[in-house]
């Protein structure tokens, strides 16, 4: 991708956008906002992938993330105590340890990027990236492609078995009782 300065500016905008929206995900009380901040963060990463020349992968990342983040928003609103953040939420456990771990992980990941001098041999941008991906799928990694299909099938069946209550053999939780939350019940049994 030619363009020099403008490309750098856009890259830094995307990178800063990804970081800020990623940070906002954990600082906002509303679950829907958190999900859509995460979506903005993934879209920024998709933008960076497009800048790297992997147009297809970047756009497919953005495409896939839309559906998944909407489902995440719906499921988070369903299961979190404070769905819309009307009451301020404090969901942090041992946050000092967490902050230290976060900084440490960032340092470990960022160090090689800065210290190692990468060879400066930019190979030409692939003119038919998608076509090469297609040939790869149908050629050497055909096995990966088919096992991915079987993996997706098992995911679908597993999801239906776990999440759906009604089914061919009647209610899924027939004969099972919901575990009681109180501790003393457990000891008395």
């Amino acid at each position, binding site marked *: *991708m*030619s*363009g020099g300065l*403008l*490309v750098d500016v*856009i890259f830094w905008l995307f990178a800063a956008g990804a970081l800020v929206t990623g940070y906002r995900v954990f600082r906002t009380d509303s679950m829907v906002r958190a999900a859509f901040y995460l979506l903005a963060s993934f879209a920024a990463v998709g*933008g960076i992938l*497009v800048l790297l020349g992997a*147009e*297809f992968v970047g756009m*497919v990342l953005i*495409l*896939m993330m839309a*559906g*998944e983040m909407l*489902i995440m928003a*719906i*499921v988070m*609103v*369903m*299961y*979190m105590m404070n*769905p*819309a953040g*009307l009451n301020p939420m404090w969901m942090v456990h041992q946050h000092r340890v967490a902050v230290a771990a976060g900084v440490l992980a960032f340092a470990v990941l960022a160090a090689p990027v800065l210290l190692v001098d990468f060879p400066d041999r930019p190979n030409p941008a692939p003119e*038919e990236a*998608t*076509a090469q*991906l*297609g*040939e*790869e*799928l*149908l050629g050497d990694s*055909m096995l990966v*492609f*088919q096992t*991915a*299909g*079987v993996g*997706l*099938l098992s*995911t*679908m*069946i597993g*999801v*239906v078995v776990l*999440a*759906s*209550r*009604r*089914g*061919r053999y009647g209610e899924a939780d027939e004969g099972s009782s919901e575990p009681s939350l109180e501790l003393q019940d457990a000891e008395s049994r």
Partner: protein
Amino acid sequence: MLGPMGVTLAVFVGSLVVVLGLWMTGRDPRPRSAPESVPFIGGRPPAVHAWSRYHARYHVMALVFLAFDMEMVYMYPWAVVFVREGPIAMVEMGMFITILLLGILYAWREQVFEWA
């Protein structure tokens, strides 16, 4: 100078900014009183906030969608090289698609697509 993707980004950001500018024209001096901002469900005030743990009746279908959506990632490159690769591409994608359609058939029989 930035290529077609740059123009697409410019069009997206440009129209976003234009519409946000138009939205800002709707500013008004007078603050709204409490009765003027009651949500409308037919005239009576709502008893509770609408924001609640909304029971999306299609949550199992949504999860099946997550798995099935990955199939699109493989379909794009396949469609590009389909004519070049010839029948081998047809057979291979046929297997892949049949496997996934089995998942839909199973989900249909388990009434996943009806309201939970």
